[in-house]
């Protein structure tokens, strides 16, 4: 079998369902692949290591690929793992923030990833607010705790399929404002990136085929697939993962290889408007469909 190294964006969590299932069910093996899966703690490292040729693929985020390509990293999106935003603006359900407009004069926590200010600006402008009306606080390692303990009134960057359940398990009911409903262009939350100069397209095609099969299996067999997922490591078998799994299934990209050019063009435009990139690049510089080119 051909060896392949995949860097996750973070520790194994239900977002990585198709990868885990493809490995456990032998779909990778069926494609003649032996995939080594490595999990880091800093999500910004894997794309760099792939760009440096230390791994074949990395799981990353669409907003990141725009910034990274703009900074000259030799990277391209080659597949999609989660095809919609997971990111949400999360508040306490019984808290003072009932609508976005209630954020005026309040604190919003975030974990620095690069684009959250732009996201907030987009969301606020819909409700007649500017960045001057709120205080942005970097809470880095503790999105859910900081909102639960009331240190901030909202956090941006929380995942609707994880943090909401986390709070629920701790006995705090949370609520999400979905940013794609509040003025943000929609995007792919999790994507696969590769170094276009070093990548072996055929191998990636096989990889994506295996994950596609795995996604179908998960959709068709939600309970069994969770059993398989939770069985891979004892620390994964818990209530949060169970709830989160159920909530994530409908977010997996059913066509991992397919590329929506418009999405990437719109997001590039959005970043340019917000001053995060200087020039607009053609989508072909950012993302490709490995199965056609």
């Amino acid at each position, binding site marked *: 079998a051909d060896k392949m190294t995949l860097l996750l964006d*973070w*520790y194994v*969590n239900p977002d990585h369902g198709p990868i885990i299932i493809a490995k456990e069910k032998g779909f990778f093996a069926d494609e003649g692949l032996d995939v080594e899966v*490595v*999990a*880091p*703690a*800093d999500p910004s*490292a894997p794309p*760099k*290591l792939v760009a*440096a040729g*230390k791994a074949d693929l990395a799981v990353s985020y669409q907003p990141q690929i725009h910034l990274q390509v703009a900074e000259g990293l030799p990277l391209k999106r080659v597949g999609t793992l989660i095809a919609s935003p997971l990111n949400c603006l999360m508040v306490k359900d019984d808290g003072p923030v009932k609508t976005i407009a209630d954020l005026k004069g309040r604190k919003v926590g975030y974990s620095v990833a690069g684009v959250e200010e732009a996201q907030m600006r987009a969301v606020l402008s819909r409700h007649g607010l500017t960045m001057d009306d709120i205080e942005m606080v970097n809470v880095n*390692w503790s999105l*859910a*705790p900081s909102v*639960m*303990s009331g240190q901030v009134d909202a956090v941006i960057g929380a995942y609707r399929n994880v943090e909401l359940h*986390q*709070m629920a*398990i*701790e006995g705090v009911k949370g609520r999400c404002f979905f940013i794609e409903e509040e003025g943000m262009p929609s995007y792919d939350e999790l994507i696969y990136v590769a170094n276009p100069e070093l990548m072996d397209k055929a191998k990636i095609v096989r990889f994506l085929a295996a994950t596609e099969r795995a996604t179908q299996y998960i959709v068709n067999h939600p309970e069994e697939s969770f059993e398989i997922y939770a069985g891979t490591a*004892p*620390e994964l078998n*818990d209530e*949060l*993962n169970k709830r989160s799994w159920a909530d994530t299934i409908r977010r997996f990209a059913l066509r991992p290889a397919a590329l929506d050019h418009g999405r990437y063009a719109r997001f590039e435009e959005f970043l340019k408007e917000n001053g995060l990139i200087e020039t607009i690049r053609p989508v072909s510089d950012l993302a490709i469909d490995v199965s056609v080119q």
Partner: protein
Amino acid sequence: MSASSRLTPMQRLRDALVAVVVALSLWQAIVWLSGVPPFILPGPWRVAVTLADNIGLIADHALVTIAEVLIGLVFGALLGAATALHLMVSPAARRIALPIMVFSQAVPVFALAPLLTLWLGYGMASKIAMALLIIYFPVVSTFYDGLRRTDPGLLDLARTMGATPTRTLLHIRLPAGLPAFGSGLRLAAVYAPIGAVIGEWVGASNGLGYLMLLANGRAKTDLMFASLFVLAAFAVALYALVSWATRRMTSWSRESLDTL
């Protein structure tokens, strides 16, 4: 740094037990008095239950971390000692390498993480390197300070005896600096576990650091604190061991605890 060396093992055990009870009471008191929610700081009882429930899981991960720490500590101590000795013999090293060392120390390890994984991969090597890196400077710094503070009279003597700088270093400065090396090593014993854990955060699939981040990410604060507890307990044990060993190594150095 440890309790008086003139205590019997029974007294030490008793003191250790008292320390544990005091620590747990303090912890519980903080939880009660400050009303801090359990998802930020769970009480000792909750953590103990979690620890008992997950003992197998935690033990598996702990063994990995312990191995990383011990290897990192040994290599860090050796490398640190060698560097301090080298700084002592070489004025050039002292003037040029020392500022560079300080400079490099002030670079937070997270910034080096991609570099380390690029060179060392995601295996044990990068964690050992991280543990080594974090203790290297304290060992160099304290040992070098000790070497420098050698009684000038003994150095004069060595000179009249026709010693080469290297032999003076080995036979005079080295033993004279051992108590300071002990200081550095005791600091290292406390920090090596943190180094390994940071290494695991950079990228790992086992170890206590991995377990902690995972638990943190899942808001399983109980599990995180249980892992943390095991890590800290290991650090205390390592400290006690190193303390005992360095004390033996420098038994001639008259420490005056009970005579204040």
